[in-house]
């Protein structure tokens, strides 16, 4: 049989290079989906529960090992006010930063940006505002520049950050950096509460170095990770025969 020659004027599309036919493409995609397992909602909920459980347990255990709650010279009222206030703020920032806001594409970028900007400002502001009512607690502690708080903040945030980023991996096609930064801010807000309970120092430069700086670093690190981990990327493994153009006549 002589192969049918297609004249130049009868090519199937005017401006589009040819690919495979629709049925073949459909069959190939469906076949590939059956060969590649993906978790159902129930399976994912189980995984998510395990990851979140570990992400919560790890910082709590580390916090206890590190010394747990230390009231020190602080009045109990100060401890309660700073801890409760920062816990409420952190809860709000975690809900905004981790939740998707009733959309498959996550929250709008304006929400995420607001959350990222407000997290350090509000938490720091709350701590300073409450501590300022106890002037003796605002004094400098010569032996506490903030290095230990800095280390503790980063240490406690590692597991939640890794867990939350893992849960959101490959899920954001719109603004992955911002989403990741919001996740980092949420993880940092959670650890801020624990560090608040541990650290009695209210000296502002100490707070900036030991509490705010690690939070900013977490946000920056998350934003860097976001473009690699949270973004939707082209998967080179799926480049098959489909991607090769059919020979032209």
């Amino acid at each position, binding site marked *: 049989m002589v192969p049918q020659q297609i004249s130049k004027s009868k090519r199937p599309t005017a401006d589009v290079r040819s690919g495979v036919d629709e049925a073949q493409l459909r069959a190939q995609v469906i076949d590939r989906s059956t060969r590649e397992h993906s978790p159902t909602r129930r399976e994912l909920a189980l995984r998510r529960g395990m990851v979140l459980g570990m992400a919560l347990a790890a910082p709590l255990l580390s916090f206890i090992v590190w010394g747990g709650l230390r009231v020190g010279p602080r009045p109990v009222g100060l401890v309660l006010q700073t801890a409760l206030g920062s816990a409420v703020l952190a809860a709000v920032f975690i809900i905004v930063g981790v939740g998707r806001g009733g959309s498959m594409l996550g929250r709008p970028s304006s929400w995420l940006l607001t959350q990222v900007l407000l997290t350090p400002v509000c938490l720091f502001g709350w701590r300073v505002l409450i501590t300022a009512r106890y002037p003796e607690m605002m004094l400098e502690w010569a032996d506490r520049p903030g290095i230990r708080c800095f280390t503790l903040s980063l240490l406690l945030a590692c597991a939640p950050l890794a867990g939350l980023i893992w849960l959101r991996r490959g899920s954001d096609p*719109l603004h992955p950096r911002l989403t990741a930064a919001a996740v980092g801010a949420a993880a940092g807000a959670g650890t801020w509460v624990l560090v608040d309970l541990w650290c009695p120092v209210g000296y502002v430069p100490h707070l900036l170095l030991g509490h705010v700086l690690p939070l900013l670093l977490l946000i920056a690190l998350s934003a860097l990770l976001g473009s690699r981990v949270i973004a939707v990327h082209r998967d080179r493994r799926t480049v098959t025969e489909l991607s090769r153009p059919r020979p032209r006549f």
Partner: protein
Amino acid sequence: MAVIAHKFAQGFGASAAHQPERAPSRAAGRGDGEFASVAMERYAQGDESAFASVYDAVAPRVHAYLIRQTRDRAVADDLLQQTLLQIHRKRGTYVAGLPVLPWAFAIARRLYIDECRRRKTDALWSARDVGEDDRRVSALPDDEFAAREAARLVEVELARMPGNQRVAFELLKVEGLSHQEAAQALGTTVNAVKLRAFRAYSAIRAVLGCPLDPSASS
């Protein structure tokens, strides 16, 4: 690109008697969206056979969008495959009742941008396509020639306008997405989508010499 340009040229005034053509897929689009949501919900719950339904509801429109963007059927096939596989991999994250199409379009657009960055040859594709159009034009009758000329103008204008305006215009007028859905797919607000589409309309009308329709943005 020539297909879309031709379609819009007919609507925008290749012939003065023609009224602007409403996207024919819009009514069907609503049905597709609901069908896709129902199928996706079944698929998220573990019904493996529902993926074929998801494919049937999503793939034709996303494929058409990708073909227009890439102007290369083979690349569009590949990106469609990857878009559907991304949806497959993330089926467990699907929340019942949420629209699937904006999600699919957003993934497809991201993969297309990735592809462009990888290849860095989109400018060459455009140049090739314009050349092929020019070769074909000479054999056409007068009316068709006029329409094609208008289509070429629209095509050039679409290629020239900022990407965000072009994509907003295509999602609304070709794919038939609602303003809300297009805003979700583009990760912006409804007002921003309206503004971008209005600017695209204005640019196209200007190049075709049509008076500006104040209701174009609605």
